[in-house]
């Protein structure tokens, strides 16, 4: 057992090392000011977004050479994962009770998140599906998964690479708001975005 645990520990450690090395040395294209909200016409999800780039010039491509020094102070791309996630440019999206449909409001948030991701094509993002406490612990695992899947499918429809979007359902674990009222429940029915690699 000690042997096995040791191995797991080593693997985790190795993964951390890889991550931190990656964070230090892999250059990430700079991001300019956040993209403006897409126009109404662009809000409808389309399947072939790549040939319809958003208005501001996006970083050309994921480059492996060092990017030129950004003209504008770029807090996001130079930040550590923790810093990114602490003040994340990826906003959570919220769902109705026992629902996983992406509402118009959620679409707006996801459109903005898609723009952020297009400016940061190296990011690997985990989409966490969460539920409020009113369902059962077990069924909420499936419901949370469905919410994460819905958010992911919408982002993919905007041209975000599916390979860069992972999903994890937490069911009703890890509520954002520990309260027990409508306001808390509404905040807890969410898809939460965590940058896990950049």
């Amino acid at each position: 057992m000690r042997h096995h645990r040791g191995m797991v520990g080593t693997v985790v450690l190795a993964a951390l090392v890889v991550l931190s090395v990656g964070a230090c040395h892999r250059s990430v294209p700079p991001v300019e000011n956040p993209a403006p909200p897409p126009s109404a016409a662009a809000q409808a999800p389309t399947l072939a977004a790549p040939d319809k780039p958003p208005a501001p010039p996006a970083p050309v491509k994921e480059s492996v050479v060092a990017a030129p020094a950004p003209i504008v102070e770029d807090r996001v791309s130079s930040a550590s994962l923790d810093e990114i996630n602490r003040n994340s440019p990826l906003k959570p999206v919220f769902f109705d009770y026992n629902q996983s449909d992406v509402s118009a409001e959620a679409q707006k948030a996801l459109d903005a998140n898609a723009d952020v991701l297009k400016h940061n094509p190296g990011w690997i993002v985990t989409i966490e599906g969460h539920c409020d406490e009113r369902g059962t612990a077990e069924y909420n695992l499936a419901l949370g998964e469905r919410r994460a899947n819905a958010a992911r499918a919408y982002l993919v429809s905007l041209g975000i690479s599916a390979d860069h979007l992972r999903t994890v359902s937490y069911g009703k674990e890890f509520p954002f708001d520990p309260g027990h009222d409508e306001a808390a429940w509404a905040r807890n029915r969410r898809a939460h975005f965590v940058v896990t690699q950049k």
Partner: protein
Amino acid sequence: MTRTNLLGLWGLAAAGVTLMAIAPGAQAPQQPPQQPPAISLTITGESGALPHYAVPDFIPLSNDAETVAAAKTIGEVLFADLAFEREFEMIPRDTYASIPPARSLSAIPFDRWRELGADGLVIGTVQKQGDSLRVDVRLFGVKQQQAAFGREYVAQASNPRFIAHTASDEIFQSQLALRGVARTKIAFVSDRDGERLVGTVESRVVKEVYLCDYDGANQRRLTVNRTLNINPTWSPDGRSIAYTSYRRGVPDIFISNIFQGTIENPLHSRGEENFLPVWSPDGTKIAFQSNRDGHAEIYVMSRDGSGIRRLTNNPANDGTPTWSPTGRQIAFTSDRAGAPQIYVVDADGLNLRLLTHESYCDRPTWSPAPYNEIAYASRTGSGFDVKVLDLASGEIRQLTFGEGSNESPAYAPNGRHLVFSSTRSGRRQLYTIDRTGRDVRQLTKVGNNQTPDWSK
């Protein structure tokens, strides 16, 4: 007075004493059941009533604090154990505190016990021997003034409760041919230690797997991975616990072999989510919920992760499986008709049937034989209550009635009790309840405790 003298005076031969050594600690594998002694006196109550039992304090054969404390514990625990199945009417212990302890068989004041209304009388002695306790337990029929059960136990002194549990289970077996549950355990998850997940922005309190005795004693932590762990389930042999852990970032199935201290990760997820493992009755297979094909479906695998077979195929979510006692059917939750309901399907995926028609049902748990029923959580108003569906009659009986929200029922191995979680006292805690809805007992008090499973 020495133990030998005492045994002699109590009538060693008549009681048919056998010596049974309990291996150290509660982790001992089950000993093969010993045959009851040749004498078999079944103690009955007056005119059809339950037999009335008295369990006076056990007698310490030395005055050291450890022996005295063990004797006290064993008497108390044995009393509670014998009360648990509600087959004996237990006479409150304070009503016979004045009856002097019997130092020999001839000195047992049977008249006083008969006056008290006792049909069965359990008396015993406790003797310390090095690191062990030698405990002599006798059950007498008061009317007959005759031994109905007698055993001597030798066990590690560190866990006197386990001696009482063993005696209780053997008394139930010898008197009623009933499988007691005093030595069974409950696995659950808890956030009681308040440890926080590392590396997240939101403050997230982890949950680890814990174990306790059936009565809530001996609560201890099993996992130490400091991530989220949920829904532990016991293997049929009681030697392993499968659970869902997020320790590698993605929810995946882990198996802790609790006596060896080893951990298995049979599926080794590459990003897919694997949840809610449940063991087949023969322990060779595990049913679970996974999104490996895009969304929640039910799969069956061999214990080592090989031979994965998909059991459900539906655009809806199918999850929370439970095996029938024969292993030929699996009940589960599906929202294919809208709200989550309980379904049952043959283990080959055929013959699907809808079992419930309520607003929201989940966490089906199939009872062990001889009962043929499924317990589940059902939405009743703002929260959930535990209900039981009798599969033969189709009748539903409700066990809890809106005291907090009641979830995640799991059966005791004899089918006579369930454990579930409830918010009735504030935070989520574990409770046991009789299968008819009586005798609610709170097992946990610290932190939030949930998703229990009862060892088989």
